[in-house]
Structures are given as C-alpha cells and as structure tokens.
C-alpha cells in the first residue's frame, strides 16, 4: 500500500470502518512511513482532545459493578500457599498460660475472619446474582423517561429490570436532579388501576441511584406500567400524590426490551 492509497483510506481508518485486511495493510504502511504516521497521529490527537472535552453523562451505578465483575472473572482466582508448619521446641509449663491466651486469641480471631469471609462471600454472591440478572437473555427492562418524551442523553432516566420467576427486581436511575429538603423519589408500578409502592430512590451527588426490591411472588415481570414520583418524605407511601416525574407505560411505549433482542 502506498501513501496515496493510505490517504484515501485515512478517514475510514480513523473511524475503524476498514475490514481487517485493509486495516492491517494501513498499519503496515504506517510502520514504515513517518509522514503518513505523523499525519494520522495528529488527527487522532485532535479527536482525542475533542473526546476529552465531551460533557460526561453518568452511567447507572450497576454498570460499574457489572464491568468490574466481568473484569475480575477474567482473572484466575488467587491461590494461597500455606508454608509448612515448623515444629517448635517446648518451653515447658511456664509458657502454658501464655500459649492458652494466644490460642484463645487465635480462636476469636478465626471466628472474626470467618465472619469477614462470609460477609465478602455474601457480597460477591449478590454481585454475581445481579450481573447474571442484568445480562440474562430473559431479563426484561423498562426504561422510564420524562412523561411523553423519548430518552435523550443528559436527561433523567431510570430503568427497571425483572426476570421471569425472579425473586427480586432492580431499579437503577441516572441524572436525577437534587431535590429540595423533605422531598423523596418514590418508585411505583401499576397493577390494574392500583399503584403499588416499590421503594424509595436516594440519588448520590451525581444523580445516580439504585434499588433492589424483593419480589417473592414474581409480579414485576407482568407489570403494565411503572413510574417515579417526587413526594414529600412525610407523606404516606400508600398512593402517589403527584404526577409521574419519569414513567414507562405499555400503552404508550414499546413492549419491554429483552436483552437478547439487543445484545448479541
């Protein structure tokens, strides 16, 4: 490949549009041509600079958990090698009391460690369960947007996820504006004409919030609409008293998106 051909392909190269063989040919040429390499490198720097100036949009918090879980599952589990125990000389009964105290301390420490390991195991199981749940082919998701509006980047959005036969459902929201003192976000779904309270969302400083809700009777998968309202914290959570701030409705939206329709 010569400089002229590379020049013709350079926009496609930058975009990553080239087929593998063409991409390799361009790269081979760049390895030996300083002029072309310099020109393309300058364009990449320009695009990188523009990328650095993009207004960030905070992704939902569960995405970070899912990403890190995917990465950590790539790593082989750490193995611990126990050093062979060395036999120690006996110092007689004078040290018996001290040994008993140390032994007692070790037993207590062991119980403490066991508790820590169980806690950690619980967290890992929970993360794995959430990851399986979010990426399962049968998991349905409902995207809640401002009433009557399609999703737009940078605007508040929330997503409810549920799996058939699942015993919980999960709500994740992003870009939620900060509320006045005494106000809360409440999540609901409709069962017929009745609004059922799901839970309260507490956004962090970046407007992200998530909520995992037990669903022992697996009703979430059948819901016809779900929404989020802004309520007074002191108001009862039996019925919403305000119009939806974000909503998804089967009548006005497409049916719930199945992940396997979207993700390969």
């Amino acid at each position: 490949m010569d400089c002229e051909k590379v020049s013709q392909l350079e926009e496609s190269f930058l975009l990553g549009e080239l087929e593998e063989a063409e991409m390799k040919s361009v790269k081979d040429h760049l390895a030996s041509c300083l002029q072309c390499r310099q020109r393309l490198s300058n364009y990449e720097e320009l695009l990188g600079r523009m990328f650095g100036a993009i207004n960030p949009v905070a992704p939902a918090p569960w995405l970070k958990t899912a990403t890190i879980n995917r990465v950590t599952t790539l790593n082989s589990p750490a193995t611990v090698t126990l050093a062979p125990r060395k036999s120690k000389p006996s110092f007689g009964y004078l040290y018996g009391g001290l040994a008993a105290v140390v032994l007692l301390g070790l037993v207590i420490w062991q119980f403490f460690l066991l508790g820590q390991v169980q806690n950690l195991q619980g967290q890992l199981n929970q993360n794995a369960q959430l990851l399986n749940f979010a990426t399962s082919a049968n998991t349905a998701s409902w995207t809640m947007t401002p009433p009557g509006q399609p999703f737009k980047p940078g605007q508040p959005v929330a997503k409810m996820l549920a799996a058939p036969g699942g015993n919980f459902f999960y709500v994740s929201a992003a870009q939620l504006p900060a509320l006045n003192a005494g106000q809360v976000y409440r999540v609901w779904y409709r069962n017929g004409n009745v609004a059922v309270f799901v839970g309260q969302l507490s956004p962090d400083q970046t407007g992200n919030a998530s909520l995992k809700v037990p669903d022992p009777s697996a009703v979430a998968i059948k819901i016809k609409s779900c929404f989020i309202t802004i309520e007074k914290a002191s108001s009862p959570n039996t019925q919403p008293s305000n119009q939806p701030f974000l909503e998804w409705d089967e009548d006005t939206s497409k049916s719930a998106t199945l992940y396997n329709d979207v993700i390969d």
Partner: protein
Amino acid sequence: MKFLARNTVKTSIADLSVEELLSQIIKGRSEALEVMYDRYAGQVYAFLLRAVEPELAEELLQDVFLALWQKAGQFDATRGSFNAWFFTLVRHRVYDALRSRQHQGKVSSLSQMVDEQHQAEPFDTKLDLEEHILKLFRNEEIQQALQNLPLEQRQIILMTYFGGYSQRELAERLDVPLSTIKGRARMGLQKLRQLLPE
C-alpha cells in the same frame, strides 16, 4: 514550597496519573480500573449514547473497559496521548459492534438504529448542529472551533466521529457521493487542526 510539593505523599490510588494507573492495570489490580472507570466512563457513555441506542451503549461501555483492561499494555505514551489512544479504542469498539449486528441482519444500516430507536438529532439544519455542539462539548474553545467550520464539514465530523454514522450511510442520507463525504471530512479535520493548535 518546592520542598512540600516534592514530599507530597500519594495516599490513594485515586491520585495516580493515567500512566501509573495503566501500569497497575497491567499488574492485574482491578482497583486501578475502577479509578479509570470513575474518570472516563461519563465521557465514554455520553459518546456511546450519541452513537447507539441506550441498551447497546450500556453493553459497549462494559466492553470498552474490558478492552482497556486487556489492552492497557499496548498504550505507548511516547507515541501519543492517552485520550487519543483510548478514543480510538472506543470508536473502533462501536463500529465493530455495529458492523457485527449488521452482518447478523439485526439492522440493515447503522443509522437505522440511530434513527428509529435512539431518535438522534439528524443535524440537518445549522440550528440543530449548533445546539448539538453546545450540548456535546463542554470546552468553549472546541465549541468555537466547530462553529467556525463550514456547515457541511461540521455536519460530517459530528455525524461520523461523534454520531455513529458510517461515511457510506452519510453519503446516502445526504445524497452526495462518498468521495465528497471523504473530502469534506478531510478538509474539516485539517481546518480543525489549524483552529485548535496544540
């Protein structure tokens, strides 16, 4: 003052530079990737949301950081900045994913996904474009440089490099030859380079 600066102790992994974080990633420390995620996920996600529908953006966001985890060792600071390298990686992931979905017949074109599912702004008018630039970029210098490009060059740069369109699709959409699109993209990048000197 110099003494104090020299003796400042880095107390947290969050304080590390990008190069230091990448070397930690190469050693297999996932906490370093978490810090990189905290620093860059917002920009990657904003870019992805402009290029694909939200569900795919969520999947690609994970793929991008998985690729960063696997390819951190390929970054060479002597050959360019991290932003340039990382944004190339992000762009290529997007086009790989869209191309793979096209091959599987899930979409007939890249822009079909963008138009029908994501309702992305078409940027057909000068007003749309200007509004888009102000929303997409927070840096006034870059906003200004883009505003100073001729409309057709601005349109092509934003829709291809920051909008998930292939050049071929854009040619069809705007009803102009592919060579014209390529020419305008090249002119646009050259002019932007002049407007945004390093």
